[in-house]
């Protein structure tokens, strides 16, 4: 538990690591806007975007495996948007049509397939591919098998636009998530915090105290490992008193969580009280001016990176204007 890394920072050495966190955050925003600027009609441009990202990963020495790990939780969302588009987008020329035959026996076979999938998926490593295989199997069954009396038939029509837009949205999500993963992989949480504070400075004019927010984030970062440790200790203490955290019905689970949460709350309040005392005793005054040990330095690398990302933004705006 002690070694949980927040923000998934992976130490490394490349130009991405040497960049000022402010640059990285601003460039991320600029590039995200650029991705959203690309119109649907020019969806081939997404390949250019993907190519640029691959180049970034390559010269930034970010392992593609790490980026994939960042994308993995998103797989189901991607699949869902794609399936959604295919089912409901009915514009553009037809590409392919399947006849789906519904009969009681067909439905029985499908139920069997789903049950089989539910029971076997825990043994399969590539869960995502297994899910896609199941969906394909269901469609094939409906299309090919005509067992028993058929009470309804439907057409599954795939339109060109559905495929295109589904693909387009998928690419958009992939690019955005990859870009943010690159940011969190290459920036220490503390640097990220400093960068965010600097970038959000204009919010001061809206009377939002960014320095205090940065202090809050930095203290949370510092106390996450301590609190995880504490939670671990409480869980062990409760386990030694007979609480079983791994099994039980929903009602038992709720009780188990309460037996963890209540002491955690009390301890955290006590901790924050003592921490507040310690901070005040060391002359901390909320909102007062402070000098900073960590200062950010702008280098030529930052100028180059920022100019590059702005050029990409202008490029995508140009594509939008032309199409």
């Amino acid at each position, binding site marked *: 538990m*002690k070694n949980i890394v927040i923000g998934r920072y992976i130490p490394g050495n490349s130009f991405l690591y040497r960049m000022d966190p402010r640059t990285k955050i601003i460039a991320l925003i600029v590039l995200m806007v650029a991705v959203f600027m690309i119109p649907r009609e020019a969806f081939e441009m997404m390949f250019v975007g993907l190519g640029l990202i691959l180049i970034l990963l390559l010269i930034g020495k970010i392992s593609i495996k790490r980026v994939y790990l960042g994308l993995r939780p998103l797989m189901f969302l991607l699949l869902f948007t794609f399936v959604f588009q295919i089912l409901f987008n009915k514009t553009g020329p037809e590409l392919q049509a399947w006849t789906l035959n519904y009969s009681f026996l067909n439905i029985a076979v499908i139920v069997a397939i789903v049950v089989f999938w539910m029971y076997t998926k825990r043994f399969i490593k590539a869960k995502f591919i297994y899910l896609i295989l199941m969906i394909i199997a269901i469609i094939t069954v409906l299309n090919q098998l005509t067992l028993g009396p058929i009470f309804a038939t439907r057409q599954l029509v795939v339109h060109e636009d559905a495929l295109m837009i589904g693909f387009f949205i998928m690419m958009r999500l992939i690019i955005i998530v990859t870009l943010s993963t690159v940011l969190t992989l290459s920036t220490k*949480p*503390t640097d990220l915090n400093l960068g965010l504070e600097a970038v959000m400075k204009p919010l001061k004019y809206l009377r939002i105290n960014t320095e205090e927010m940065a202090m809050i984030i*930095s*203290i949370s*970062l*510092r106390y996450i*490992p*301590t609190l995880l*440790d504490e939670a671990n200790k409480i869980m062990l203490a409760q386990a030694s008193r007979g609480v079983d955290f791994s099994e039980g019905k929903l009602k038992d689970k709720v009780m188990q969580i309460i037996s963890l949460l209540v002491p955690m709350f009390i301890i955290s309040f006590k*901790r924050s009280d*003592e*921490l507040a*005392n*310690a*901070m*005040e*005793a*060391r*002359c*901390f*005054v909320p909102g*007062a*001016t*402070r*000098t*900073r*040990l*960590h*200062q950010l330095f702008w280098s030529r690398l930052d100028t180059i990176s920022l100019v590059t990302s702005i050029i990409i933004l202008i490029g995508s705006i140009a594509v939008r204007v032309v199409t």
Partner: protein
Amino acid sequence: MDIIQMKNVSFEYQQDQPVLENINLNIKKGEWLTILGHNGSGKSTLSKLLIGLLKPNQGEIIVDNILLSRETIQDVRKHIGIVFQNPDNQFVGVTVRDDIAFGLENLQVPRNEMVERIEKYAHKVNMAEFLNKEPHNLSGGQKQRVAIAGILAMQTDIIIFDEATSMLDPKGRKMILEYMKQLNAEGVTIITITHDMKESVLSDRIVVLKNGKILKIDTATNVLKDQETLEKSNLEMLLPLKVLRYLERENIADEKVRSYLWQLSLKR
């Protein structure tokens, strides 16, 4: 010269339940003073009053010729540093370096000087090689040393140790006591708050506190001799003195044994 003066100080959290009553205490510059008391004697409250975390209901506190009040609280805090009991709950920075810097940032010390001071005082508490370490990779004793460095870097002339060693292992405790001795020798006024007799022996004077009242203020030797007071305040006697007491009761303590056991208990 008295660096701290407390005049008729009283404090209560709830009405008619005084935690401290009529405390009169003068602490000399460069002195090492122990505030000794059992749990609930009000000794931690006393330290919080000194650093302005609590406001006395009555009386006045003068630190370095500054009368402690709402307006002067920040000035007073520049003169007093405090090391608290729990090493985890006073570590503000994400790394050792950040934590030592925290007080300096608050004092608006320029960055160049900050870097210098961090190096200097981290060396002083032998934590220089740990500057980039995170708190959860440090032991309790190491965290307390960082806390000391953080206060030294602020260059205060008084340091309060509020049961700073009570959560440490014997090795960590010994080390912190060593730093206390060293700092006191360098002229820092030290106030230790403890219920441990062994620690109090090191100091110049001991204040014995019970139920919010001062029972006795005297040198360490005299307080140790005053068994009546110690018993009254529920404090555990030092082992050699306990032995001496049994021997005296059985009438088998000769002068040699007596002086040896005293020597043993007053060993610094």
